[in-house]
């Protein structure tokens, strides 16, 4: 799979490229000194700055390349491997460019944004390497669509079974299906928050006193239906209730997988919501950095 050999693409070819880039930058940096202090203002500083700026633009182009499926400019896999390794090398190039001199200015802003982009990229790399295994283990080979199809089917079965049960059970099961919460906002997805509800009727006669209560992990409704089994007046009713419990438990299992899948996919994609906007902020800061340097040079 792609995520397993991004770093080792073609024997870690781009790791060597990155090392070469670092060595070249260090060599350029080392020729500084004497008359001028190391920094962005020496010819070496300009050379390293140009190298860094070109690298940033090229690294950004990955986003464009991966959307161009017809491109012949190398495989997306190769580009991604180079993106990771050369992106990491960029920290060294930029630090040598500025000679590690920082201040409260637009130049350091560009550096900080660059570091933030790279750090978010490192986090992204981590989740790309770690999450797919967890995703596969969770879904057991089934796609999310299949899980939802199963859920829909279980919903229908649950409703039909509940209809023939006593009104309390019917209300509880119907409400638990209607009030099943999946996903939602950012934190609900990422933390797999389950604020499902159901309407609990304490007794058949007292259905009017029903109240919406938490049905986290569907346990509430399962417990409620299970409690009714011993009270079943007829064998057929008990059978219905037991069939209902089986459906609800299968539903519980499917919902667990769905929530975990949403959570893992969320973390797998979250870093891009930081990485991409910060990249564009970095490009803007790079323009500001270069422009201001030449406006007041």
């Amino acid at each position: 799979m792609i995520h397993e050999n991004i770093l080792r693409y073609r024997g870690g070819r781009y790791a060597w490229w990155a090392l070469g880039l670092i060595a070249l930058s260090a060599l350029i940096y080392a020729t500084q000194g004497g008359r001028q202090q190391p920094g962005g203002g020496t010819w070496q500083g300009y050379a390293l700055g140009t190298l860094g700026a070109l690298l940033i633009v090229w690294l950004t182009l990955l986003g464009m390349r991966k959307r161009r499926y017809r491109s012949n400019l190398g495989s997306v896999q190769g580009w991604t491997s180079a993106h990771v390794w050369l992106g990491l090398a960029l920290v060294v190039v930029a630090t040598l460019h500025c000679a590690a001199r920082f201040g409260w200015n637009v130049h350091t802003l560009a550096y900080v944004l660059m570091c933030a982009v790279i750090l978010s990229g490192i986090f992204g790399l981590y989740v790309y390497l770690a999450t797919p295994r967890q995703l596969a283990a969770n879904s057991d080979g089934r796609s999310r669509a299949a899980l939802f199809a199963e859920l829909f089917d279980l919903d229908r079965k649950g409703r039909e079974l509940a209809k023939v049960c006593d009104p309390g059970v019917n209300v509880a099961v119907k409400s638990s299906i209607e009030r099943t919460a999946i996903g939602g906002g950012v934190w609900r997805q990422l933390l797999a928050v389950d604020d499902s509800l159901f309407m609990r009727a304490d007794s058949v006669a007292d259905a009017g006193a029903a109240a919406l209560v938490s049905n986290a992990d569907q346990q509430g409704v399962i417990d409620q239906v299970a409690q009714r089994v011993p009270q079943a007046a007829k064998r057929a009713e008990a059978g219905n209730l037991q069939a209902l419990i089986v459906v609800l438990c299968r539903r519980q299992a499917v919902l667990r997988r769905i929530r975990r899948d949403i959570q893992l996919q969320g973390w797998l994609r979250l870093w891009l919501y930081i990485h991409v906007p910060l990249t564009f902020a970095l490009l803007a800061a790079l323009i500001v950095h270069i422009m201001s340097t030449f406006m007041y040079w």
Partner: protein
Amino acid sequence: MDVLLRQLRQAADGALEYQDTEVTADSLSVGAAADCTIQLLGEGVAAHHATLRGRRAQLSIACHRGCKALINGVASASATLKIGDLIEIGGHSLRLVEPPAGFDIAIEIEPNAQVATSQYERAFRTDLSATWLSKRGAAWFLAVLVLAAGLLIPYGSIPLQRAGRSLPAFVPSDQVWTAGPLIPAHQLAAGRSCGSCHQQVFVHVRDAACRECHKSTADHVATAQLAQTRLGPPQRCAQCHQEHHAASSGLIVRDDQLCIDCHAKSDSRFGALKVTPVTGFSRTEHPAFTVTLIKPASALSASGQMDWVARREPVASAREQSNLNFSHAQHLDPARVTRQSDSRALGCADCHTLAVDGEHFIPVTMQRSCASCHELTFDPAAPDRQLPHGKPRDAILLIQDYYARQAVDPHPTTSVVQRRRLPDQTVEEETACSGPALGCAMRRAQAEIDNQFKTKGCASCHNVTDTHSNEVLDRFLVAPVRLTRDYFPDVHFSHRAHAVQNDKSGDGACLACHAVQKSTSSADLFIPNLGKCLECHSERLTKERVALQCSDCHSYHPKTIIARTGEADVQ
């Protein structure tokens, strides 16, 4: 209201099947969510897509925000419905039909057969893209924010600042472009206004901006002389003095390479200017020293004046021409000269006093350095009468007045006698004068004047020319004395730092470099040459040598611009 929902399904044999559901509710919700009265799946169906409200005659549909439905083929967000109307949402058809008895409303639902139950996911927000998180929006926001706060607003603030308008503290000014702190002095002078130095955008800081404050800083080479070279235009101030670097390291570039870059090739690049190549600090790399001596530029004029000129000459062959007769050997010989105060031999500091700068010496003058021993008395009988120094005419008049007064004094303390020096005898013979008293006095005065200007007194130290004029005031011309005060006007040298060196201090330290002990002539030059410096110094720090950089002795910006032809204005 009581609603009949009739779901149409195509059975396996092609026949239509009905599945009726009865609902009693105030409103009917339509959407993909499980709690919708009419649950429809598929693309184009939101979790909660629309709501049907009203009664039979006034039934209306209102789609939720961002949703639409096709009402009789026309996309609409809301509509009033009548019997027979067709509502299409995501390929599903809902038709309002005539309700059977007992129902207010009846709806036939024909689901979209293409939609699989896996589309149920659309009823939920299961992807971050469905939340408020937005890559594109955030990217635009951040990029515009950075461009505005980092470039556009600061750029817009420049004309306001130049117009003297002060900006509120929260408005980013061009200060955000600073590449680093200024040195404290510049921070104090111009730290709040970038435009003090950066007067034009996209233009390097110009020397004129520097010179607005640094008015007295001299150029390394005079412009007229630079034109004789192949060095090209002078460098901008800021090429060496780079601001916004670490404030602690200052602005002065001390790297030897700065000097050597030009001076190593001085024979080829300096054109008509005669500049000896320098590549380092050793006998082979650095030229021998040349001193700047102040020398007579003309003969003595009839009024006793001379023109002077500063000449650069190699230390090895240079001779002083100060017009002073002085023997260091004689003054340092304790058998001949001792200090009045303690009768010990004279030391260097008895005559030479280091100035406060630690580099130069307070000029040696008659009054300051010689007068304590060398009184200008002329008559042993009148030890309190001294001749004025530096004013030969006044001295002659004083001698004449002195003897005239004695001749006419009715109560002389001493008689006016003619002193006559006999050949080969130090004893003067005194003979009585006969004739008019004034005549006697003038003859006596003339004898003393001759004595002072030809034999002793003035003639001891000064070059006196006898013009043989009949007019006594014009007869003797004393050549003026000019002692060179600064032998290396463009070089730093701290005498104070060298007052203690190796195992020597005091006069020992002075004499280690200035070997004056055996000098009997004031033409001798005691300035040490390069070799003397190299005894203790070298280009790089070693165990035996103290490192010296070019800038330890030389200034890029000279105190005076030495004309490279070898002469300079006399200071």
